[in-house]
């Protein structure tokens, strides 16, 4: 009888520990790079799918622009704008610049940079949109996101 009790207790402890181990949160990282080499003016939407069991979301967008201008906007699934910034270069994007840029893109002059960080606890699930609005822009954008998901609460 004593042995049966011990076995039952051990089984119970094992079960609880196993459940706890699986209930831990996991992170999901995503990095996207967008390069604009040819004076881009096309609006792009980058979507981040936030699952229902996401407990927190971190989004960081870093952009550098050498020519033209670039606006970045962040929208949640309710289409509410949560943040934005614009970076503008004073230099006009001429045909000569476009040509030179493709040849010497690493050695051209200074850039204008913008960075935004957003932390959201219990983010609204659904499609988060990062809207990229370039105007004759030459530069790059790096979008990093980290979702912390609770595995026990699918």
């Amino acid at each position, binding site marked *: 009888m004593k042995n049966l009790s011990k076995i039952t207790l051990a089984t119970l402890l094992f079960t609880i520990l196993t459940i706890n181990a699986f209930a831990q949160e996991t992170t999901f990282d995503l990095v996207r790079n967008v390069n604009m080499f040819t004076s881009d003016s096309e609006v792009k939407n980058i979507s981040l799918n936030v699952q229902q069991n996401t407990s927190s979301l971190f989004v960081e967008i870093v952009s550098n622009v050498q020519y033209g201008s670039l606006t970045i906007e962040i929208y949640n699934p309710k289409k509410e704008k949560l943040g934005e*910034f614009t970076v*503008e270069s004073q230099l006009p994007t001429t045909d000569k610049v476009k040509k030179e840029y493709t040849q010497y893109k690493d050695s051209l002059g200074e850039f204008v940079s913008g960075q935004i960080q957003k932390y959201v606890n219990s983010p609204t699930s659904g499609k988060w949109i990062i809207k990229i609005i370039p105007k004759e822009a030459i530069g790059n954008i790096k979008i990093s996101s980290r979702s912390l998901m609770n595995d026990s609460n699918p």
Partner: protein
Amino acid sequence: MNIIVLLILCGNVGYSQNDSGKTGKIEGIINLDSIWNDKIYLSHIPDFGKMYTMSKSMIIAETNIDSTGHFSFDTNYLPSEDNLYRIHVSKKDSSPASIIIGGKDENHFFIIANKYSKISINNISTINSIEINSSKQNLIIRKIDAITNYIDSTNFNESRIKSDFVEKAFNEQIRQIADTCSYPLVALYALKKSKFETNVSTNLEFYQNFLDKWQNEDSAYFKTFRETIPKRKKQVGSNVFYYSMILLAFISGLSINYFYREQKNRKSNLLTTLSVQERKILSLLQQGKSNKEISEEHNIGISTVKSHVSNILNKLEIKSRKDVLDL
């Protein structure tokens, strides 16, 4: 903590925002760690839509941060009217024209200044949690920023329901600041920070009343803001009714006047149909005299008088002697 900023005292002057005739200055002492450049930049923000726009063309001044952490911007060349400015620092691996929004590395803050402003920046622990002395307007700006920073931290630390609740409550608090603030540009800054764009449709009257309050403000900031708020609808229905009533009264007046004038003309035409004798008798009738008195005055018989009176009544188209008195 990447940016450690020490206490700064900008002299012992009792500063005022419009200390006309004296030299203005924006200064402070900050100590930056090794990731930051030892330069600090002042940018002009021409409208509230450009608060988070970074461009080299917006940077109007840069100055070195010396070994003691001191920096200083002269304000002599600034416009005499209040304008919005942004002060920022940049990382060593980044462009001077860089903006970082959110997080511990946020690299900028906003101030309102003019050419006479003397602004001292005190007790900075991070670049976005500075304290400003000697400027009432900028003290309110800091208060507004503290509220929005609290909203952001709630988004990070609390559940969605609580953070939604906190955001609504605190945005309402910022709108209250905007409503009661006596500095127009600060009031507008408060509205911008309260995310007014999401509130206009449900609270339109508040924004229209706000613009009524500041109707004499013609700065570019207010002009841009006015364009985003739907104008009051003119009360077409009541105006039409008002003007219709005036027109009706005018036409009625004209008609009545015309009617009485016609009546008068008609009666004076009828009078011309009376004989000389009848006119004399009419005159006596209008004096209220009886047939007997008329008979005695004109030395004619009463039956003759009665005949004249009857003719007079017929010719003037009236029914009784009493009506003669109204002629």
